[in-house]
């Protein structure tokens, strides 16, 4: 992909990344490359290290061995945007969709500067892009699971991030809303950004990813969905009870 017209375009490579907890390897020698404008699904069973991988990429966990490299056109701050798992968000905190999207401007605002006209316009534009213009004043607790995820994507857009990490974004989101979320992510991908979405739920949408990384503490397979969803890989992921998932989503 020609990235010159996309300031947020990026390439990312992980080389031999190993993460340990108390002497046990949570991730072992993970190596893969993601090109600009890729929507990648990271699939694997619970405990496969999907969240650990995202935390290592985001710099939240120390990498014992190997390295994560990000090449991006825009050298500004806020390259990575993290959409957290539902449990790690403080839903008791009373913020509106607009407030959350404005959080993406934090690193551009600095310490004392208040949001200006451009910041507010950008927030409105990003909410519009994810189809939530009419919900800008709604509290986050008043939104559905799918709408909340789209607010987080809008926050990543105002942050002008090059890489979006969505951890279990389909959790608690119904099938229709999952479809809507993937459509939004595809438009984000079309701007040259990298979108990584972790899921343990192999729904029909798995075939909609450009690339799929099959992870079970190590890379079992990485490539287009029709190449990686083989019975052999499924068995490596889910053991003897592994499911056969074709690109069409038939089990």
């Amino acid at each position, binding site marked *: 992909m020609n990235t010159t017209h996309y300031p947020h375009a990026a390439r990312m490579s992980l080389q031999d990344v190993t993460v340990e907890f108390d002497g046990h390897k949570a991730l072992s020698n993970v190596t893969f490359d993601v090109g600009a404008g890729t929507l990648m699904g990271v699939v694997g069973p619970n405990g496969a290290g999907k969240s650990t991988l995202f935390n290592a990429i*985001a*710099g*939240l966990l120390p990498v014992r061995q190997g390295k994560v490299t990000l090449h991006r056109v825009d050298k500004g*701050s*806020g390259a*990575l*945007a*993290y*959409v*957290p798992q539902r449990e*790690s*968000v*403080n*839903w*008791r*905190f*009373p*913020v*509106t969709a607009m*407030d*959350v999207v*404005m*959080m993406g*401007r*934090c*690193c551009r*605002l600095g*310490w*004392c500067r208040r*949001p200006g006209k451009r910041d507010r316009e950008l927030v409105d534009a990003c909410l519009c892009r994810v189809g939530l213009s009419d919900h800008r004043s709604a*509290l*986050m*607790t008043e939104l559905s699971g799918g709408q909340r995820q789209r607010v*987080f994507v809008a*926050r990543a857009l105002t*942050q002008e991030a090059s890489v979006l*990490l969505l951890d279990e974004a389909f959790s608690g989101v119904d099938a229709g809303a999952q479809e809507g979320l993937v459509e939004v992510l595809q438009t984000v991908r079309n701007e040259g950004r990298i979108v990584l979405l972790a899921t343990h739920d192999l729904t029909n949408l798995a075939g909609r990813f450009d690339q799929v990384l099959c992870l079970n503490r190590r890379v079992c397979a990485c490539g287009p969905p029709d190449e990686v969803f083989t019975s052999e890989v499924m068995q490596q992921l889910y053991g003897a009870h592994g499911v056969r998932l074709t690109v069409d989503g038939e089990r």
Partner: protein
Amino acid sequence: MIEFFVAPLEYGFMLRALIGSVLVGVMCPLVGAYVVTRNLAFMGDALAHAVLPGMVLGFIAGINPAIAAVPTGVAVAVLVRIVSRRAGLSTDTSIGILFAAMFALGLVMLSTSTTIRVDMEDLLLGQLLGISPTSIYVSLGITVAVILGLFALHHWLLFASFDPVGAQVLGRRTNIVDYVFLVMLALVIVIGIQAAGVILVMAMLVTPAATAYLLVRRFVSMMIAAALIGTAAAVTGLYISYHFNLPAGPAMTLVASAIFALAVAFRRRAPV
């Protein structure tokens, strides 16, 4: 009616108490809004107890106990974070350990010192009516500093309070913001102790903010409503204490609690 409000102010101590109650009524709930929404009430309670050694040192050294307590509060707030991270313990556990240890240290210092005479009741229940001009100036300075701090850190505090992991990914500033917030919390508690005492300062920190949480939607509105409720409770409590010869701290606490009870009865926010 006017006499009810004006007459007490002929006394210098009442005028100082009124200024002190307004400052505490504004400052505690502003920070308390974060305490309530970030589930930090135990941390607040612990800090209120843990500053005791600093206050005792102040009495011994002959300096204003509020000024002496500030570094202790700040040190304990920072220590809680360090102990949780280093020992891999939950924040609650670290708070429990440090809070008990520091309060015990303060009590030992009080019991062994032969040079100071402190009324424990004043310390535990506050002495708003005896607040000194120096304490008023210290309170005013801290109030201004805390309001400026909250203004400067507003967006980062919102981010870190709502989505701590996402904020941490965005930058190392989140850690700085958390430490600065704990420092502000310690400052506010030290000032609140003078008005309401070690035990009842929690009422000014938590109750008006919790009341506001039930009544308004957005966080900024919650901060403003909390400050208004806190001021109303503090001033009303002060006048009640004067006219009915009651201790000021408990009177303020009861007024704040009564407003909270009304808010629960007419709540707007559905439980999360």
